[in-house]
């Protein structure tokens, strides 16, 4: 039997359930378990109901499941909301100072008393809960102590007293095995995205805060010095994209990040980046839309938007990685691609990738290099938009001797001066089209389509982005195939048709209301036989997909 446990910790906003969940994740990670944490929180700062669902397993997992083995309740509401999902053998661990549960399956910890006696503040109740839980599942005090020392730099002593008291007061029930495999760091998708982009030579990150992309801004600002990059928060998304285009014009490898609403504001700038052939990476982390939608919850409703955003015939890469490892890899790759082809690119993720926590395979980073773009050879007069055979014009930057660098939002000649005559317009459009042909050839060389599950199966799931996690697990459990297009523009038609060869029933799985990937596939003559859509702003669970496919 594969060891696979789910722990849910919940409470009001401000009670520290997220931090506690992360510590529990790290505890298991240190014992060799693979971890996935789903964070469910509301758009508020105090009150309400927040929870983290920590799933730990021997093998790599990319989503949470419905059943809970341990329900850790910082408040009574958490018990009410989640006890129905508790496994038959599941255990509730709760605050016995506030709640009394007579049930055998539950264990009380006098959180408030312990905190009070140690001279702590209410939020430290979560330390007592973690420590009690650790004791129940048989984690050694030394392992817990070591981690808590790392996690609590402030009020460390009080937290350790609270933890020790709760640990000693609680009985051990289970002996969890330490696994004989390498411990992996646990990181959010936003964080692995940063690591990948930095490895590919990111110079500058600009953003305006917007959930769920804000974590990128925070992580890069926090590590600005270590990563030797620049970070700026600007007045709005329109400012962000236009300043980023300016920075790239100066030669800085620049990335911006936002969610759907912010991306909507950036679309005029996206068109400018295409016209001025400015390399630029836009991270679009989707959340449930339209409009403000459900800001702290997930959705895949921006696929068609990302593919078509901006006025005019715009070349772009659109890449949608499906988990934290892929996000690191493709964040690096897309930065290199943007510079190679001097084009805007969109890295399309969502809340489920951005803010969930994954066991991260750091070896991925070894596959990422900072690739040099095509630079001017300093011979003859510099032409920013030189009409080359493959459409890619060598780059020079302001400040470079002998080069006059002229970028233009108008249609322009090779030097960068405005043109309005038919011949010149067609010539430049053709230059950009040749570049697009090169981009298509590039996609053919990349692993644009991933295939999982039983490769010879006649039934296959097709999905994209974060839905990969639950869909892959469902496909593996059902013994069917799963096909995931990672690059969505230029669309890898040949690769997907190859991957779908022999498939008789194709099942679409997406978290949006109209089946946006289906519309894309239809453009290439690929028909869907069954649609499984979810649009309640929550990610799919593997069992939901399994149940719907079995029907």
């Amino acid at each position: 039997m594969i060891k696979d446990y789910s722990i849910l910790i919940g409470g009001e906003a401000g009670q520290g359930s997220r931090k506690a969940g992360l510590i529990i994740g790290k505890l298991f990670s240190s014992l060799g378990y693979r971890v996935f944490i789903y964070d469910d929180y509301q758009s508020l700062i105090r009150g309400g109901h927040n929870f983290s669902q920590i799933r730990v397993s021997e093998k790599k997992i990319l989503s949470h499941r419905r059943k809970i083995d341990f329900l850790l309740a910082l408040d009574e509401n958490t018990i009410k909301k989640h006890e129905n999902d508790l496994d038959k053998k599941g255990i509730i661990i709760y605050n016995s100072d506030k709640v009394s549960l007579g049930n055998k399956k539950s264990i009380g910890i006098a959180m408030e008393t312990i905190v009070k006696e140690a001279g702590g503040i209410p939020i430290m109740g979560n330390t007592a809960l973690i420590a009690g839980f650790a004791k129940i599942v048989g984690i050694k005090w030394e392992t817990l102590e070591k981690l808590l020392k790392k996690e609590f730099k402030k009020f460390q002593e009080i937290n350790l007293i609270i933890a020790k008291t709760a640990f000693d007061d609680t009985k051990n029930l289970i002996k969890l095995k330490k696994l004989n495999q390498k411990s992996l760091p646990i990181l959010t998708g936003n964080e692995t995205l940063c690591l990948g982009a930095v490895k590919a030579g990111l110079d500058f990150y600009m953003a305006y805060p917007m959930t769920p992309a804000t974590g990128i801004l925070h992580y890069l600002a926090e590590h600005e010095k270590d990563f030797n990059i620049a970070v700026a928060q600007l007045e709005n998304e329109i400012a962000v994209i236009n300043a980023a285009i300016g920075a790239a014009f100066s030669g800085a490898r620049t990335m911006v990040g936002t969610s759907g609403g912010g991306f909507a504001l950036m679309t005029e700038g996206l068109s400018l980046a295409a016209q001025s052939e400015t390399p630029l990476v836009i991270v679009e982390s989707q959340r449930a839309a339209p409009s403000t939608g459900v800001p702290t919850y997930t959705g895949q409703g921006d696929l068609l938007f990302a593919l078509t955003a901006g006025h005019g015939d715009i070349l772009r890469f659109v890449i949608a990685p499906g988990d934290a490892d892929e996000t690191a890899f493709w964040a690096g790759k897309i930065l290199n691609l943007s510079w190679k082809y001097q084009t805007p690119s969109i890295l399309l993720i969502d809340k489920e990738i951005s803010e969930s926590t994954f066991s991260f395979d750091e070896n991925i980073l070894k596959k990422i290099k900072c690739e040099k773009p095509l630079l001017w050879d300093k011979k003859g007069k510099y032409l920013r938009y030189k009409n080359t055979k493959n459409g890619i014009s060598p780059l020079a930057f302001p400040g470079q001797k002998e080069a006059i660098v002229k970028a233009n939002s108008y249609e322009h000649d090779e030097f960068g001066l405005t043109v309005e005559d038919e011949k010149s317009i067609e010539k430049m459009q053709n230059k950009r089209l040749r570049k697009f042909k090169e981009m298509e050839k590039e996609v053919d060389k990349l692993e644009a389509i991933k295939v999982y599950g039983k490769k010879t199966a006649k039934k296959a799931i097709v999905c994209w982005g974060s839905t990969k996690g639950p869909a892959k697990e469902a496909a593996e459990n059902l013994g069917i195939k799963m096909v995931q297009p990672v690059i969505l523009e230029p669309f890898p038609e040949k690769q997907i048709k190859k991957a779908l060869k022999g498939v008789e029933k194709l099942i679409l799985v997406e978290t949006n209301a109209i089946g946006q990937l289906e519309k894309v596939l239809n453009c290439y003559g690929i028909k869907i036989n069954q649609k499984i859509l979810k649009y309640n702003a929550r990610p799919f669970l593997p069992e939901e997909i399994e149940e719907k496919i079995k029907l």
Partner: protein
Amino acid sequence: MNLDTFYENTWCPGCGNFGIFTALKEVISSLIEEKTPKENIVITSGIGCHAKIADYLNLNSFYCLHGRPVITAEGIKLANPKLKVIVCAGDGDAYNEGISHLIHAAKRNIDITVLVHDNRNFALTTGQFTATSPKGFKGPSTPEGSQEEPFDPLKIMLASGATFIAQGYSAKTDHLKNLIKQGILHKGFSFIDILQPCMTYSPKAYQLYNERIFEAEPQNLTSEKEALKKINQWKFGEEIKIPIGIFYKIQKPVYKIRNYD
């Protein structure tokens, strides 16, 4: 020094842009003579009649989106602080479409120079009212005259934290040259609103400006109170004398990005 491209100049005869173009070229020439490397100079422009200056100047340039020349210039400067970045914006760019960028650039005191070619109408789209058009301005979108009072961009700049505020006039080229030079040499955000007559959509402006514009008396440039007094002498609307000159100049820490110092 020849800083011209061979691009055909299509500004209307008598357009105020010519005066600004001449003054700017002479200032840039003098900077280059004083050892500013030519390759370190970058011009950004918005969209409008003024913006054609990007095609006319044989210098690094970014011909930006309408409303965005200030923020694009900020990105250029932040990524390479060695560059001297000069923004040519129209009143439509700076005060209508892109007012937020102008305010925030002043607020963060970024070391760029903004020249607003303020002809007080949207000329390239055939003469609609802008934020600085006088009340009652008759254009194709306001045949009965606009209802809105203009705002005073200099006052907005003062309130936003700009550290160099000046007003110039395109027909007083020598005076304007001095303003632009001072602005570029100023460490921090420098803002110059340049009144320029539009011969096609506001043909009376040239005569009116010549009658009313005068060079302001020297004053204490670090006093916000005195600056406001100067700014308030003319409010972009009334038929009174219009002072030009530097109204405000103070030193404040310049916005910098870590790792790009």
